[in-house]
């Protein structure tokens, strides 16, 4: 793979203006709900008030009689087809345990029926008029309860598939032993154990889920939706509704954030069903309350880590056990569970004895799904707290302990081979790793050594510093495919068509930068069109930190093929060999003589003049490996010892994402992920009543960080060159969220000597720990 030498680069590595930036800052109507289609009906969902119940009867006669109500759907009038709502490649490694409408409800908020009406008011009135008779069943609200003898079976339907052990409410399970773990612990000089727990966190994208389903002039169904996975939406909606896939077009316009909750089929199936039944366009949008409870959440988890090490700090045995609450349906249950171990254990690859095991268990609570970090976040909380305890036991500096144990370029871990995405993985050697440098940079910037000895106090405020490190992946090995088509216009500009999904991450921009670099044009000459299943080639979508690495490589390959075609035409025009020509400054330039020709001339010639043909190429890429980005996190906290209030004063993150295609966008991913992580650590938690009803499904009581909550954040991009990545790039989207939970917990320990192992670290929990010290 030819790489343009760094000092000559004109696009890659530059902070170009986002291709959609101007439109966004001018408020142009680019989001899902910003279109008005005449005749659109409003769709609304009737949600279950019970955590676990059978639907004995549904009487919609009164609701249907209401003027303005056009259609009501429920289990009695739709075909019953099991599917998964998880936006994953086929075959989805999630149970097929969901139905458009089922005869049973499994959490407060579950779907009972859906109405399409002429207005929102009429739709809501209709919901109130639908009479449902429920037979209430006993419900379980934690994995422990769900696993207990005699627990009610949540998925007792006969036609579900892919559930690990439905009778015991186990959606998925993993058990990955390496070596002999108990022997490993007995051979260790020091053994520590830490169990960490996280509750229900929700992504709270500022734009709730929304979808418009309508018909084009040919009567094909078009779904315009706020999604991270347009191609999976198309396939899964086709399955759920028994429609041929080619009769469906899915378009993703600008969307207002996702973070994983939009890696899912949430409203598209219902909206499409209503549109098909009524023959009219249907718009559906979640309220903020529905967004909290009826979209997706992070998997609440309890993770236990046991570490055995030698006196010199080398890890010898690592055990990780995870108990995951997947909620009422099993989307992403297996894969998130697998990632708890697969994205954490390879980081410290020195231990020959490993055991990773765990279960994902159904409960009668909101459905957990994909959330940035995807299991690694939960895993690193426990692992990095355990490492901190180990460092203390050994009398070793926590940074030194990491330096002693972390994986380095040229090394591997047995975990890469053992755990893939719901199946076995593939062996992999890490080719780029600047974690050592990240640790040094981070430690220096926060003033680690000075602050560790300082023990600063001001009145009731005690200060401390803590650290953690993490890795993630870049795409899913052997499974994720991204593709790109580049078409040359006659004027020397280009169209870049990618299935890849920009959810605000800026992927449209960085993919254009990659193409621009190869084609020797400014980014403005690349017109990007993305995420339209009719017009763009396939891409799995935005998840698993795959877009830069996977979709980016597809773009690189397509651009190189287009370059080859251009050079062939230009060779004829300049009468030189293609091998002597290069692209630069919108021209084809000879490396040997003074001759050159403008790209516009090449385009014009190929379109109208000689040997007319369309200069274009489509390329695909499925990654044979998933090079991890690495990050080191350092934070300083102040703890009010009288009230338990924790303030994060400073947060430093140094990350190795390979080469940053767009440094500011990469920084933005880190900064945003860190603040989301601070929310996990300090304030966020969904609360439920004893009957499984969510008590704080609103932004007034589910507190996410505001601008005043954010400490002084400093991010540093530490370069490495990933030989398999486009221009040396890896990924950055997720790894940042893995740091705050353990780093803040460790900093609190440094400040006041108590370990917070249950998130969020509310003033109440902190004070309680302080008082019982």
């Amino acid at each position: 793979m030819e790489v343009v030498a760094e000092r000559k680069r004109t696009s890659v590595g530059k902070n170009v203006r986002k291709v959609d930036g101007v439109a966004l800052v001018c408020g142009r109507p680019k989001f899902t709900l910003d279109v008005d289609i005449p005749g659109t009906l409003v769709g609304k969902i009737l949600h279950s008030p019970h955590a676990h119940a059978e639907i004995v009867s549904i009487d919609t006669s009164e609701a249907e009689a209401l003027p303005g109500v056009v259609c009501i759907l429920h289990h009695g009038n739709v075909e019953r087809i099991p599917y998964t709502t998880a936006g994953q490649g086929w075959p989805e490694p999630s149970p097929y345990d969901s139905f458009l409408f089922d005869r049973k409800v499994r959490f407060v908020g579950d779907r009972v029926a859906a109405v399409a009406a002429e207005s929102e008011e009429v739709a809501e009135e209709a919901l109130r008029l639908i009479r449902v008779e429920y037979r209430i069943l006993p419900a379980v609200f934690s994995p422990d309860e769900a696993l207990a003898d005699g627990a009610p079976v949540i998925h007792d339907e006969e036609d579900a598939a892919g559930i690990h052990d439905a009778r015991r409410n186990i959606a998925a399970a993993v058990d990955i032993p390496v070596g002999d773990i108990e022997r490993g612990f007995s051979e260790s000089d020091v053994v520590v154990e830490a169990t960490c727990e996280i509750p229900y966190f929700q992504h709270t994208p500022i734009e709730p889920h929304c979808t418009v389903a309508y018909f084009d002039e040919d009567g094909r169904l078009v779904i315009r939706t706020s999604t991270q996975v347009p191609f999976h939406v198309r396939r899964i909606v086709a399955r759920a509704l028994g429609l041929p896939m080619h009769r469906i077009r899915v378009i993703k316009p600008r969307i207002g954030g996702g973070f994983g909750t939009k890696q899912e089929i949430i409203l598209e199936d219902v909206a499409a069903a209503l549109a098909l039944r009524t023959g009219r366009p249907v718009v559906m949008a979640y309220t903020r309350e529905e967004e909290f409870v009826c979209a997706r959440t992070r998997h609440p988890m309890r993770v236990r880590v046991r570490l055995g090490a030698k006196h010199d700090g080398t890890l010898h045995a690592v055990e990780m056990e995870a108990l995951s609450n997947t909620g009422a349906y099993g989307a992403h249950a297996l894969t998130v569970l697998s990632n708890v171990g697969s994205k954490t254990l390879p980081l410290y690859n020195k231990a020959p004895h490993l055991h990773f095991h765990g279960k994902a268990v159904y409960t009668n609570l909101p459905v957990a799904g994909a959330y940035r970090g995807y299991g690694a976040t939960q895993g690193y909380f426990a692992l990095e707290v355990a490492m901190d305890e180990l460092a203390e036991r050994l009398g070793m500096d926590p940074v030194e302990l990491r330096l002693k144990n972390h994986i380095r370029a040229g090394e591997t871990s047995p975990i890469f081979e053992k755990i893939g995405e719901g199946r076995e993985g593939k062996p992999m050697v890490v080719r780029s790793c600047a974690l050592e440098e990240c640790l040094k940079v981070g430690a220096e910037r926060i003033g680690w050594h000075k602050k560790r000895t300082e023990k600063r106090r001001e009145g009731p405020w005690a200060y401390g510093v803590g650290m953690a490190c993490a890795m993630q992946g870049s795409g899913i090995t052997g499974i994720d495919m991204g593709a790109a088509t580049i078409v040359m216009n006659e004027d020397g500009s280009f169209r870049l068509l990618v299935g890849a999904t920009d959810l605000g991450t800026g992927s449209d921009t960085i993919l254009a930068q990659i193409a621009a670099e190869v084609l020797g044009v400014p980014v403005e000459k690349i017109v990007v069109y993305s995420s339209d299943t009719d017009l763009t080639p396939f891409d799995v979508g935005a998840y698993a930190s795959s877009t830069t690495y996977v979709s980016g490589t597809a773009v690189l390959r397509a651009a190189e093929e287009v370059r080859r075609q251009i050079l062939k035409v230009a060779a004829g025009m300049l009468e030189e060999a293609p091998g002597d020509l290069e692209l630069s400054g919108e021209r084809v330039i000879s490396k040997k003589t003074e001759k050159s020709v403008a790209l516009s001339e090449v385009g014009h010639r190929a379109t109208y003049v000689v040997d007319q043909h369309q200069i274009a190429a489509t390329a695909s890429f499925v990654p044979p490996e998933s090079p991890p980005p690495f990050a080191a996190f350092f934070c300083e906290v102040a703890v009010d010892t009288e009230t338990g209030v924790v303030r994060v004063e400073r947060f430093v993150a140094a990350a190795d994402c390979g080469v940053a295609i767009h440094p500011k966008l990469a920084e933005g991913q880190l900064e945003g992920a860190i603040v989301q992580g601070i929310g996990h650590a300090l304030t966020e938690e969904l609360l439920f009543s004893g009957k499984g009803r969510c008590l704080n499904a609103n932004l007034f009581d589910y507190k996410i960080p505001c601008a005043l909550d954010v400490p002084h954040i400093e991010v540093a991009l530490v370069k490495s060159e990933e030989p398999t990545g486009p221009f040396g790039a890896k990924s950055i989207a997720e790894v940042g969220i893995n740091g705050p939970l353990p780093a803040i917990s460790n900093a609190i320990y440094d400040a006041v000597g108590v370990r917070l192992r249950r998130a969020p670290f509310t003033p109440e929990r902190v004070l309680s720990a302080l008082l019982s010290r």
Partner: protein
Amino acid sequence: MRLSGIKRYHFARDVDEALSLLAAYCGRAALLAGGVDLARSARGDLEGLIDITGMGLSYVRGEGGGLRIGATTTLTGILESKAAKEYLGGFLCEVLRRVAAPPLRNMATLGGAVASAHPWADIPTVLVTLGAEVRWSDEKGEHRASAEELWQRQFRKMFRNAVLTEIRLPAWEGAFAFEKLSRSACDIALLNCACGLGVEDGKIAWARVAVGATPRRGRRLTWLEDFLVGNQPGEGLWREVRDRVEAQVEVSSDRRASAAWRKAVVGPLVARTLKRAAEKMGDA
């Protein structure tokens, strides 16, 4: 906002018109100033809205060292007024900067805060400490009462048929401070405290202390006020305040915080607030 049953929106020109409109609707209309509480309420039964922001009730005037604030003055209006900046060294401004966020402060009115008096709110605690007087009009005429006394009554029912007109804050010779504990930096209080001290010859001459969001609405700790008088401000006194407050203040649990935590922190919270007030006087 879910108020779809509204049939008419009125712009009242004066108090009498507002009152007669209220009467005509027989309880199915609401007065509207900023509308923040109304829009978030579940008053689906409402048919009429009576906008009272055009009745000349937006003003902030200093009078005899005290403050007169029109009921429909927005919180931002108070924050930016010269009179409020001068009152008690800008104490009211200090408090309001910690209430909600600027766009909400641009909408919310002081009268609205008095009429809703949410138990978790900061303004009621502060008004009680300051000894605020509330004035309103109903069909029987004009009335007044201290905010403290008003909130012991069925005030919400009362205000469905009355127009709040003015809030008066008396003059004080001393210093006031306010503290709150919350989940994030832009949040309601899990516990709040407002207090004022007057110091003469190095000893406390008078004290006002109120604690709110306990989770109950702000109330004065008159027993603590009595105790403080005659004592010398200082670390010794603040320690004793902590112990007494922890022992005697009633708190309970709600979904935002437990009684145990509130009990443990209310002492330090009150002590800190008093200490800050004393520091403002130069007598920490």
